């Protein structure tokens, strides 16, 4: 039997359409990108940072040393390519809308700790084209370094500058590799993940554990008796750029 080229191409095209339509329809069924995690029901992790206690400790860097050591965050000499998960930022940079010519003495020229805010409504998650970053049911904005294509759209989307890109292989810049946590490769974006691997073992985040001044308080917002909730009840707190609707989970007592 002879088939004309036109007929063959037509049949091939229809077959291809038939074979791929289910996959395409599944993709557009708008299912959630992942199943919810089996964490304790209704946990919503958050952190309260008491800037006063932090500043009393002076030139302390214990939290960021602990974080960067635990997670093999490289110390890159070139500031343009630096990678950081938690660091100090001048108050006016962290809270530009609260900038004033007459700051209180306690805050004048003093830094605050900044890190990923693990927003309730994160723009970075909204823009990621591969779901390499997503919001877990326990509130953590998580990273999958296997899936990240390094497009840096999330970096553009983050209103807080919390994300860092690996411009080159980070390993040469890691002084002491911690074997039980992977390093990252060049070409992916990274940020604080609220120590989810430690939380899975029931341990607090590394920065919280390392802070001697007890300035970093971590806990479950959905538990009315938690430390974070009691601090929020008893103190006035601010968050970074709340007017953008991101609903950050890092609260600051200033």
């Amino acid at each position, binding site marked *: 039997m002879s088939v004309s080229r036109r007929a063959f191409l037509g049949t091939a095209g229809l077959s291809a359409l038939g074979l791929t339509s289910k996959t395409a329809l599944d993709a557009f069924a708008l299912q959630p990108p*992942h*199943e919810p*995690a*089996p*964490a304790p029901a209704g946990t919503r992790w958050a952190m309260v940072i008491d800037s006063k206690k932090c500043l009393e400790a002076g030139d302390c860097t214990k939290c960021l040393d602990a974080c960067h050591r635990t997670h*093999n965050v490289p110390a890159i000499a070139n500031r343009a390519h630096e990678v950081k998960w938690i660091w100090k930022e001048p108050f006016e940079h962290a809270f530009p809308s609260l900038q004033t010519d007459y700051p209180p003495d306690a805050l004048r020229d003093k830094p605050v700790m900044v890190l990923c805010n693990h927003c309730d409504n994160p723009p970075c998650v909204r823009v990621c084209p591969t779901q390499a970053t*997503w919001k*877990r049911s326990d509130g953590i904005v*998580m990273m*999958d*370094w*296997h899936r990240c294509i390094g497009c840096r759209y999330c970096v553009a989307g983050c209103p807080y500058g919390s994300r860092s890109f690996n411009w080159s*292989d980070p*390993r*040469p810049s890691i002084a002491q*590799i*911690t*074997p*039980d*946590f*992977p*390093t*990252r*490769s060049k070409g992916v974006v990274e940020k604080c993940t609220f120590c*989810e691997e430690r939380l*899975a073992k029931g341990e607090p985040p590394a920065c919280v554990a390392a802070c001697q001044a007890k300035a970093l308080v971590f806990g479950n917002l959905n538990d009315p008796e938690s430390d974070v909730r009691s601090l929020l009840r008893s103190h006035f707190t601010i968050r970074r750029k709340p007017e953008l609707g991101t609903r950050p989970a890092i609260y600051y007592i200033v």
Partner: protein
Amino acid sequence: MRDRHVIIAALVVFVGLLTFPIWYARAAGTTARGPEPKLPATEKTCVMPVEYMRASHMALLLTWRDDVVRRQDRAYVSPDGKAYTKSLTGTCLRCHANKAEFCDRCHTYAGVTPYCWDCHVAPASLKGSGT
């Protein structure tokens, strides 16, 4: 035949290229002997049967990867009922501690370079950058 020399020269090059696998392998000293990965001294059972691991350890690792990273599902129970934590460095490399004598033997033979080692740390190879 004016172009005799060009033709003969081209023929020599052609035969050289054609027989490349033979003389290159000779020169590099490669043999047909298969890989001999060094098995762990103490543990005798792995998280899955040996035949499965030989054929599909990568499938297992990929499942573990997505389970841990994307679904926080870290608990694994092997077919023979033993409990493990899903972790390349923490579980697999706890027994197969020497990557060079185990993993690399077959990978080098098969000519594959899995990029897992770009990030995941093999304890014995902390000095190197992990290939």
